């Protein structure tokens, strides 16, 4: 067999060895554990150029950049709190999707709970007060007639 033949075989072998065979799709992210942490942090952050989306889901350029930045920070070993600080020191509290519990947000976080307690207390008082007017007053004939007419939904001469 001549040289051309062996070169041909070699060529075929090279090509077939580099052809990718179909297999399990590779995850888009290098490190799924890291990605999960990235997603958890990103879901707590707002995408600043979108109309009401979290940083996790947004496809905007800035969002991609910021996620890349956070990925770098995670790889550098920063804690979640440090990463949040990184973002807030550059973009302000606005970037937090979950408002921080600061004096300015006390009404926001505690308001509903206080409102609920207040409403339930008011309700209990109302129920107890309605019980004190327990006995229904007796009707005199004129009132009874009026009641009857009302029950029949006829318009009274006003």
């Amino acid at each position, binding site marked *: 067999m001549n040289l051309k033949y062996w070169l041909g075989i070699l060529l075929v072998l090279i090509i077939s060895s580099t052809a990718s065979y179909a297999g399990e799709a590779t995850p888009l992210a290098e490190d799924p554990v890291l990605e999960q942490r990235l997603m958890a942090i990103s879901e707590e952050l707002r995408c*600043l150029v979108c109309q009401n989306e979290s940083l996790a889901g947004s496809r905007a*350029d*800035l969002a991609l950049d910021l996620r890349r*930045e956070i990925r770098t920070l995670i790889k550098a070993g920063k804690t979640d709190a440090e990463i949040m600080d990184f973002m*807030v*020191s550059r*973009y*302000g509290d*606005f*970037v937090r999707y979950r408002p921080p519990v600061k004096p300015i947000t006390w009404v926001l976080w505690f308001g509903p709970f206080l409102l609920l307690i207040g409403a339930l207390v008011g309700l209990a008082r109302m129920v107890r007060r309605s019980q004190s007017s327990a006995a229904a007053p007796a009707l005199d004939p004129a009132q009874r007639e009026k009641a009857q007419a009302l029950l029949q939904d006829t318009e009274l001469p006003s």
Partner: protein
Amino acid sequence: MKKAMIPLGIFLVLVVFLAIGLTRDPREVPSPLINKAAPAFTTTRLQAADQPFSAKDMLGQVWLLNTWASWCVACRQEHPVLMEFAKTKTLPIVGLDYKDKETDGLKWLARFGNPYDITVTDKDGRIGIDYGVYGVPESFLIDKAGVIRYKQIGPVTEEALRDKIIPLVRELQK
């Protein structure tokens, strides 16, 4: 006060807030960097990739850092204003070409004019992130000590120059 007036009271307070809300822009994100040190950065110049530039090179001067890009439509709006302002030589203006290809940036400046004393690049946007940039154009007024004193969100307008930037520059340059 009658209990029946409570709903009305709540509603009136709400209306006042809504009315004030009409005068605000919910998309505007104020910068937390005002009166804080301008983040340090080192990058290269647009026209000369081998010449470095650092923010600290500007210490001792009051200067304006303007982020722009060739793909940015609003930047074209602010450009004539910047050109006019540059002619007054009030203070040095440094242009930061944000997330742009160098050739595109150079072409844009050649086509529309160059108001910048120094032009530098931010290819991957990291300087922008450090400065809290979320949408070009944005501009930062930095004082002699390297502290950010004012941020213009969106294009620099004549009103902003006249009412806010120039008076502040005069103050800082004293």
